[in-house]
């Protein structure tokens, strides 16, 4: 055999073998990729937990979820865990949980878990919906007050409470205080505390106590001194941070937010732990035992819980001003922000109020609508040509949501529409008389014409000033999707009129909705700020929710 031929033949064989081997390897790598991709998050082999959390702890919860995902968490059998976190107010959270749209809930208080189970049983279920639960942070509900205001009431030598707030608010018309609506834990807990004070009890609050005329009168007197309500303590603290002392003298919030404020402001708030007792926001994380919950989800819940309860994460929770649930961590740790310098006292509260049964809690929520400070509110709707089609349809839905949320029969609502001109569709009247007419008028709205925004606001404002009703919250909720182009009033004149009117007449607050990208946010901002109101952005997807949020202020 020719040695050169043999060598060439061997080389050819080697080359063929190498090509074959490389091809085989490439095939295996490709197969590996394909198989791997089947188990990556995009493929469905991962475990997803849909978690609803309440807005007041958004900064903390979003940070913790980001940190958790950075650890590339997996279940014990190796499946990647993905957290789909959604910020929800407690009422929406409960509704979504009951519809099976959430796997885990983290409201601000365990009170909502009892309410959730009650609603679950009412649907005919025998076993509870709320399953395994852990608490990763707690914070007591306090009355946040400017330090000098507190001192004028006797702080720190005298223990203060709800009675002091009432006495001050009734004796000083300039005193402005607020608590969120009962759709947040701090609002509900503040309301419960008022009903306890009204019933002259610290425990055993019954349905009879809540509905007794004397209690309702007491709570009504206290509520009449509330400036206006709001969607939650987080929204209040943001307003106080941006507007400072002119916004409120005192408000109800969890202790953590007092610390949050004092770390960011030169002015100082102090936490008043009411002597009658307070309650705790305990931030539970609960797995929902709905039909179809998988073993993977149970495992993922455990992994998330363990993460939240781990020492390092608990220290991080402390750094946010919450009291960690890891009891090995001392509140006087050198890194702890729970200090007198931040306006809080780690040895407080001394006593809590007794949490009534879910049935009594529901009665309190219902009774609050009768005792709360009533409202005169004008809804001012843009029906200019640019609103045509889907935009107007969604805006009408939003207005209907708003009307649905205004539950008290004595609340007064009126309706104004504007395009090239301003039309007073419905006079301000009590909802027990005009609810049906309001719904009918909203449904009949049609679009066309220009945008006389300033004239419409001025008209609504003048109506409220003419009424001169200082007993109620006077407000305008105005929505526009475009720019002012057809008013007789100019912005400086309108702002000047409202500023002067609010000082000499009844205070009227304007909430503005900038609907879509074309809305003139700067103008709306100026209108809102002149009255101590707010301007928010909305679009066809969010307009309903935005109207719902604004309804919590009344």
């Amino acid at each position, binding site marked *: 055999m020719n040695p050169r031929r043999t060598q060439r033949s061997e080389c050819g064989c080697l080359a063929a073998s190498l090509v074959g081997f490389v091809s085989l390897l490439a095939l295996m790598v490709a197969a*590996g990729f394909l198989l791997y991709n089947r188990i990556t998050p995009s493929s469905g082999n991962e475990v997803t937990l849909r978690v609803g959390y309440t807005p007041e702890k958004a900064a903390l919860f979003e940070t913790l979820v980001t940190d958790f995902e950075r650890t590339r968490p997996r279940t014990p059998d190796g499946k990647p865990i993905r957290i789909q976190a959604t910020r929800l107010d407690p009422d929406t959270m409960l509704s979504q949980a009951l519809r099976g749209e959430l796997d885990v809930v983290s409201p601000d208080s365990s009170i909502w878990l009892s309410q959730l189970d009650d609603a679950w049983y009412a649907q005919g279920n025998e076993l509870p919906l709320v399953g395994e639960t852990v608490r990763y942070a707690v914070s007591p509900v306090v009355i946040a007050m400017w330090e000098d205001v507190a001192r004028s009431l006797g702080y720190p030598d005298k223990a203060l409470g709800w009675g002091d707030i009432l006495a001050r608010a009734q004796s000083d018309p300039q005193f402005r205080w607020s608590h969120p609506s009962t759709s947040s834990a701090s609002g509900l807990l503040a309301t419960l505390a008022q009903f306890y004070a009204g019933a002259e009890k610290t425990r055993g609050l019954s349905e009879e106590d809540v509905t007794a005329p004397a209690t309702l009168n007491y709570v009504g007197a206290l509520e009449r001194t509330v400036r206006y309500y709001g969607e939650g303590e987080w929204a209040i603290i943001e307003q106080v941070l941006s507007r400072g002392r002119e916004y409120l003298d005192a408000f109800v919030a969890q202790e953590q937010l007092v610390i949050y404020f004092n770390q960011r402001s030169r002015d100082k708030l102090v936490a008043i732990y009411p002597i009658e007792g307070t309650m705790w926001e305990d931030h539970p994380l609960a797995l929902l035992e709905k039909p179809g919950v998988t073993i993977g989800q149970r495992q993922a819940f455990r992994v998330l819980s363990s993460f939240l309860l781990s020492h390092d994460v608990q220290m991080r929770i402390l750094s946010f001003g919450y009291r960690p649930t890891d009891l090995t961590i001392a509140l006087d740790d050198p890194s702890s922000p729970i200090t007198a310098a931040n306006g809080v006292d780690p040895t407080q509260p001394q006593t809590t109020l007794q949490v009534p049964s879910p049935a009594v809690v529901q009665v309190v929520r219902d009774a609050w609508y009768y005792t709360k400070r009533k409202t005169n509110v004008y809804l001012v709707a843009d029906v200019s040509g640019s609103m045509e089609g889907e935009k107007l349809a969604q805006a009408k839905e939003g207005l209907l949501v708003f009307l649905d949320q205004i539950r008290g029969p004595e609340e007064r609502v009126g309706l104004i529409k504007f395009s090239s001109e301003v039309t007073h569709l419905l006079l301000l009247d009590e909802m027990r008389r005009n609810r049906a007419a309001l719904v009918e008028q909203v449904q009949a709205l049609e679009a066309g014409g220009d945008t006389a925004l300033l004239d419409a606001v001025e008209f609504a404002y003048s109506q409220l000033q003419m009424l001169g009703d200082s007993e109620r919250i006077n407000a305008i909720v105005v929505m526009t999707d475009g720019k002012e182009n057809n008013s007789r009033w100019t912005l400086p004149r309108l702002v000047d009129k409202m500023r002067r009117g609010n000082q000499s007449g009844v205070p009227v607050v304007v909430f503005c909705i900038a609907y879509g990208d074309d809305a003139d946010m700067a103008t709306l901002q100026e209108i809102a700020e002149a009255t101590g109101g707010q301007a928010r952005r909305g679009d066809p997807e969010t307009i309903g929710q935005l109207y719902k949020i604004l309804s919590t202020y009344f």
Partner: protein
Amino acid sequence: MNRTRIIFLLVLLVALGVVAVGLYLRRAGGVEPLIQGPQTLEIRVVCALPVEPFVTEAANRFNAEGHKLEGNLIRVTVIPMDGLTAMSRWERGEMEPFPTVWIPDSRYLVELVNATFKEQRGRDVFLTGGEYRTRPIAISLFAWGIYASRADVLRAKFGDINWSVIHDAATAKGGWPELGGKPEWGYFKLVVPNPNKNVGGLVAMVAAAGEYYKKTSINVADITNPQFQKWLKELMDAVTDFSSLSAYSVENLALFGYSMGDGGQLLESDLLVNMAGIQTRWADPLVIIYPEYITWFDFPYTIWMGEETTALEKNAALEFERYLLQPDIQKLAVQRGLRPANPDVPVTGENSLFERWSSQGVMTVVPRTTAMRSPDREVLLALLRWFDLNVTER
């Protein structure tokens, strides 16, 4: 290198490649092993909450040590569940996945479930005799845990603390100022777990009944006595919160301090485990006082004897039981405030919580007391029904 060697080398490389990819995919959890190894015996232990940390720690050690039975690896998984919840799930047939072992809080819960299954299957599913009989793995008593400042005031006014004193404190209309305490303490706040969520709540009511009647055995007539019910209601009205929070009991006492509970009759092991946390979080320490009428949990290790588990699984469960009762493992129980079931293991020694907190009133040997008898099914149901009607709906 000749052709044969090259081909051999290539085959070897391909084989290595297959193994590497296989290992990678297995780590990613994507594929089953190519060859089935020996069977893994999965032992699922549904475990009462007060002993779950101890049993889980023991199970982790057991799993790490790779115990085998007839060549099969035993793997223990612990599922925490309150005794009453577990009892309800057994009886409704809702144990999923099916447990091999149940460690409830107390032996009487086993007897109650056994009674239910005896009606269905005509035989016991948990045995009281023989190799597979139910055996306790640890013991814990119910004792008073009260914040020291509050205990001092109660002792000064009433003397020894017992259910009668607690009742008087609970019904004091003026709250703590009337009892000699500070106004800011509010009213007297009792800690009793929600009996629907924590079997300790039921035991607390049974203990209260024992002291009320000055006897060790409680029957349905005692529970339904209107005078007793009035007395018990007045006690329960001093509990701050029976909502979701109350499943935790001592944890609440530690986390929320005296603001939520001045004290209560609670499981000694829970009190001991949380004692350090209470002292870290609240300036006021807790004291422990032993009642005259003692109730306790014995945490029986109970192997399911139905056909839902194999003989091999039952024997594997037995292996884990023996492991739990070994002296070294029983010492872990002591470190978690539990009294050991193995009489050779003392409650004293290294890391003993009983020694650490003796200054707070903890006793290694409990003085002569009166032991309450376990309540029967009718008594438990009557108490639960009364609770639901009169307390939950208050």
